[in-house]
């Protein structure tokens, strides 16, 4: 296991992106801003590397891209698919179970 928490954090960016897209369709820059703002920079998703992740999710049928014109430029918005919603539910459940488990260990260690 690495000491930078990378293995612990694997899958978290996908969970976060799916959760944001469950609210409304968003484009890459908006997603990056929202992650920064909502996590107060605690969770860092490289802004450029967000795109291979989004394209990978699209290839797996989790998100659906929609091209829209914005200020003369073509912009790609992403929306969640039914498969994406199911994946979000599974990831959320897994994250909550893991988080509760870790929290109970941290809590009991704190009381000792």
């Amino acid at each position, binding site marked *: 296991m690495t000491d930078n928490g990378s293995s612990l954090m694997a899958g978290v960016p996908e969970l976060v992106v799916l959760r944001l897209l469950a609210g409304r369709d968003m484009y*890459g820059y908006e997603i990056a801003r929202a992650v920064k703002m909502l996590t107060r920079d605690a969770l860092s998703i490289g802004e450029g*590397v967000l*795109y*291979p992740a989004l*394209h990978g999710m699209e290839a797996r049928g989790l998100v659906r891209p929609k091209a829209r014109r914005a200020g003369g430029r073509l912009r790609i918005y992403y929306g969640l698919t039914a498969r994406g919603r199911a994946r979000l539910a599974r990831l959320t459940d897994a994250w909550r179970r893991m988080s509760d488990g870790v929290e109970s260990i941290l809590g009991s260690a704190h009381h000792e």
Partner: protein
Amino acid sequence: MSEGRFSELRDGLLKAGISRRNVRRAVLEVEDHFHQLLEAASARGLDEKSARAHAFEALGTNRLLIERYAARPELRAWPNRWPALWFTLVPLGSYLAVSAAAMAVLVATVSLMSAHLHQTHIPSGVTLFMALAVRVIFLGLLPALIAAVFAVLAHRRRIALRWPVAGILLLSALASLINVEFTLTGGASPGQIGAGIGVSTGSLLSQSVRALMVAGAALTPLWIAMRRYKRTRAALR
């Protein structure tokens, strides 16, 4: 300056085997992201040079982006995902399909002309020339052309050299084992066409020579494309 960076990103992604559709999308989205970072930095009062530097830093390097794309096999083009299939078996199948289609066209043409051919005397020189032309086209030009097209395509997609070379050798070997006979005559029997495949111990030498000629003809464009690429890279360094 930024255009150069996005052009480099496009080239790098294509070389990494990412499908053209994903490359177009990636460059479009990263470029749009860059412009928005730039606008945000300018709105915070940064001068243009600092805003650009900040935007590039936030996006990450092209190398990192290309690595992340390359790590996702689902984003690669089909030929890059299955190079062994695409550059060895697909050329063989294409050759057989194109040959069958061309033969069907030839048979249909002769059938349409049969009434005219019944009343025509065709000199033996023309019959010999047609027979030779059909053999050269079906057994030499067609396999060499198909093998060369797939080999150059493989080079453009930066596929490991072993696959296009294996494809050329396989196709050359197959073409050398095939025999095509075409006889165009007038009068009572207006024409015959036949094709067969087989190995004959008596014609091993001629079959090997044919295979080598086809392989040589198909390897030449690949060799030219590789030389050109090496020169361009050397010039850029």
